[in-house]
């Protein structure tokens, strides 16, 4: 395992962090009823007797949610097992039955691990299915729960399938927590289980955090932080909470195991004035739902269909382009980019060029990629690799190839992007430069600034056909020849 320099909350201290990531699964319907699993609907329109907990209604499990859970489990190298739903009993107005149906001692996915880009491996304890709650809106008191006059409830989200992925307390600093969530998100998106949109609440993070003096083996009292709605909040909340805990220890005060909330506006974690009541959830097996026992054949099918995961792509990149920067690497392995890169490598395009064109030109075009298939992308890059097109021509060609499905060679002709001919470029430059006799003299005398002006003139006329670099090269060669003949 690689080691990595971590940043403690204070000199001599380190963080111990475990994360619980709740991801909304991208099913068409909710976990236990046929209501649409949709975001942004009118309040209380995506509801039925089951997800409103009306008397006599019964839950029936969604097969697609099981499928997604299995895919995530496989991607995290977890053991997929026969699972049983339990009821977690507690009263809260956003929970229509006043119990949550969740997998307790026998989750569908047990164990597993996730490898970070840094090479560090974070253990996964479990990934289990459960239902989401409705949404509370607080009225009065600036919309905050603690000062509100009353609250409103929208049950559209009630019963939306969640997969809760619980990490081991293996994470050692806030940046690593961010890295973990980012990596997990890309896995969830890659297997199709989630759209990964944190800002819409489809990915929510609770953090368990404690601190300890470096070198201490055991775990100290931990605090659970809720309401971490962005990666930024996650990092800032962990930093704040780590320091708060160190100060408490420094002051000799007792640490209490508690739940705290991240207050984004004030940049602090705070304990809620919740009534003192030990959490006694009175779990028992959900009698309305038979166990889920995934068919081994189905598991093997899903394993075979598992898409390439970010860690696999990173491993591949490390072999073909060991010196690639972290930023470029993460851009290239993104789902939208990766098929183009792989196609280029498979067609023996220079890896550095493939990576650069993916990260720069292709990324800019992704929103309107149109008819630019990986095959056409590779065709264009091959011309560049063979020196038949310059960089600016490639740029133009790629942009056009998104909207015009004409075959690449015809498209080049149609656009007047002639293949490169050094002699031809020189004559173009000579032709453009001829009327600028004074400037030409200054250039020959070594005025580099004027070179830019001359290249600019060339590009104004022939920019569609030749690249700036080629024009400059031709200018340099023409200058050398002129000076030589003057000697």
């Amino acid at each position: 395992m690689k080691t990595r320099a971590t940043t403690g909350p204070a000199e001599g201290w380190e963080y111990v962090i475990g994360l619980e990531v709740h991801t909304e699964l991208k099913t068409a319907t909710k976990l236990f009823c046929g209501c649409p699993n949709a975001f942004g609907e009118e309040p209380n329109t995506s509801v039925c007797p089951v997800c409103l907990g009306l008397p006599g209604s019964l839950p029936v499990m969604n097969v697609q949610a099981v499928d997604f859970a299995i895919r995530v489990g496989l991607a995290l190298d977890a053991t997929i097992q026969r699972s049983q739903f339990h009821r977690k009993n507690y009263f809260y107005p956003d929970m229509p039955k006043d119990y949550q149906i969740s997998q307790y001692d026998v989750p569908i996915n047990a164990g597993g691990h996730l490898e970070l880009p840094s090479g560090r491996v974070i253990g996964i304890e479990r990934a289990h299915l459960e239902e989401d709650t409705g949404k509370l809106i607080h009225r009065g008191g600036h919309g905050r729960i603690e000062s509100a006059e009353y609250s409103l409830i929208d049950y559209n989200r009630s019963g939306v399938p969640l997969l809760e992925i619980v990490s081991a307390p293996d994470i050692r600093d806030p940046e690593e927590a961010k890295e973990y969530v980012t990596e997990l998100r890309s896995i969830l998106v890659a297997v199709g289980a989630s759209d990964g949109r944190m800002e819409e609440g489809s990915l929510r993070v609770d953090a368990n955090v404690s601190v300890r003096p470096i070198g201490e083996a055991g775990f100290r009292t931990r605090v659970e932080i809720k309401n971490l709605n962005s990666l930024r909040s996650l990092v800032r909340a962990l930093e704040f909470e780590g320091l708060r805990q160190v100060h408490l220890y420094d002051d000799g005060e007792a640490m209490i195991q508690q739940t705290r909330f991240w207050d984004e506006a004030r940049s602090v974690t705070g304990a809620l004035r919740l009534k003192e009541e030990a959490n006694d959830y009175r779990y028992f097996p959900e009698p309305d739902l038979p166990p889920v026992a995934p068919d081994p054949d189905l598991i093997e099918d899903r394993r075979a269909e598992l898409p390439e995961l970010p860690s696999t792509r990173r491993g591949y990149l490390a072999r073909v382009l060991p010196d690639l920067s972290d930023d470029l690497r993460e851009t290239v392995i993104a789902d939208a980019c990766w098929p183009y890169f792989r196609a280029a490598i498979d067609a023996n395009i220079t890896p550095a060029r493939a990576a650069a064109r993916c990260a720069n030109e292709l990324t800019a075009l992704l929103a309107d990629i149109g008819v630019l298939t990986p095959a056409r992308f590779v065709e264009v890059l091959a011309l560049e690799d063979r020196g038949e097109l310059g960089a600016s021509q490639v740029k133009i060609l790629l942009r056009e190839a998104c909207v015009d499905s004409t075959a690449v060679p015809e498209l080049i002709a149609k656009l007047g992007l002639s293949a490169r001919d050094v002699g031809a470029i020189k004559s173009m430059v000579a032709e453009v430069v001829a009327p600028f006799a004074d400037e030409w003299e200054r250039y020959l005398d070594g005025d580099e600034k004027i070179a830019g002006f001359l290249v600019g003139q060339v590009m104004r006329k022939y920019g569609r056909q030749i690249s700036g670099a080629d024009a400059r090269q031709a200018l340099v060669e023409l200058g050398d020849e002129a000076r030589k003949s003057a000697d």
Partner: protein
Amino acid sequence: MNDEILDWGIAELARRLESREVTTVEVIDAYQEQIAIQEPEVDAFLSLDLEAARRRAIDQDDRRSRGETLGGLAGVPIALKDNLCTTAFPTTAASKILEGWTPPYNATVVDRILAQDGIVVGKTNLDEFAMGSSTENSAYKVTKNPYDLERVPGGSSGGSAAAVASRMALVGLGSDTGGSIRQPASLTGVVGFKPTYGRVSRYGLLAFASSLDQIGPLTASVEDAALVAEAIMGHDPRDATSLQEAAPSLVRPLTEGVRGIRVGIVTNLVDTATPQVQASVLRAAEVLTQSGASVAEISLDELAFGLAAYYVVAPAEASSNLARYDGVRYGLREAGSTVEEMMIATRTKGFGPEVKRRIMLGTYALSAGYYDAFYVTAQRVRTLVRTAFSRAYEAFDLLLCPTSPTTAFRIGERSSDPVEMYRSDVCTIPSNLSGDPAISIPAGVDADGLPIGVQLLGPALSERLLFRAAYAVERGLR
């Protein structure tokens, strides 16, 4: 004529309607008249709508005159226990917490009854949320036993039982969690059937204890019970605990007899009963023997633990099932300055004393530190009970025992002592714990003229045989 109509069973009623000897409207009118006489005395119903029943009757007569073929329950006046969801009537479970609540959906059994052209006349009284054995725990009224108005009709489906016994409905539907169909059937002299767990969809039944609850019929005869059971059984995709099996054919095999069938008398359950009840069980055994069955005794001492396990499992599940009555989305709300205060005020006002007792008992049994000692132990007893039944069913095809250890008791006699009340269920509880079918059949009356019921038990999915034997007992004792 009216009295004659009330005597007809479902099959006979169908024949007479078919042959135009009588119209559906005449049938409903006969029942309406009977209700007008009986209901003020018996108090079986929480809501009645005879206007709607009459409109449905007119419609059915119309359809019949146009040559349409009607469903198997056409013209049959039906009383539904008020814990079954109905869009046409409020559904209260006899609780203040749901006073006036009308669900926007029907229970699956209600849809099936309506699909067979059954005519629902009203919703019947019960112990609040089906928790009780006397129907005295209703928040609205105390239903009386038609055989003696000073006595209880049993419970919790006491309203449906009393309605059928007093001929205010031809069919009653009830729910049975620990005997709540069979015990009141026994105490009011009607047939009560609890199907194998999963045979009948629970969708739309206000849950008491989800792993024990089953819906079933209360009727005047075994044949009627079989007809109704056929109509309501079968898989329902809205209930994940509903069996995939199609409804078995029960009516046609009724007359096949019991020759060669092995029946075991459960002696330790017989021992819990009064001498007159014991005598009825022996008379039923005699009938079976005369019909060609072989009858022998068996003691299943393990069943005695069933009562204890039941009073853990049922309250535990109930404590969770009844959490949703919190004043937020429907039903009663009492004011409170915070959500928690509002919920506490609502539940404190809305639930009666027995419901509170069971919620607290269940909460206790599931709470940290007690779960293993209570809940898990009770689950082990369920296995013990099932094992005892498996052993019995190696030697016997069916078992015979009392339904209730006693006949109907006086109103108020046991209501002050919950433990005494709970003991009324000792013979019926084991079938709920194991999930097996059972049926109570009228077997004469005691010295006070109060009905006695005997119970036949069978292994899971043995309904065909169970009904054949019940039919033989019914005919032999008549």
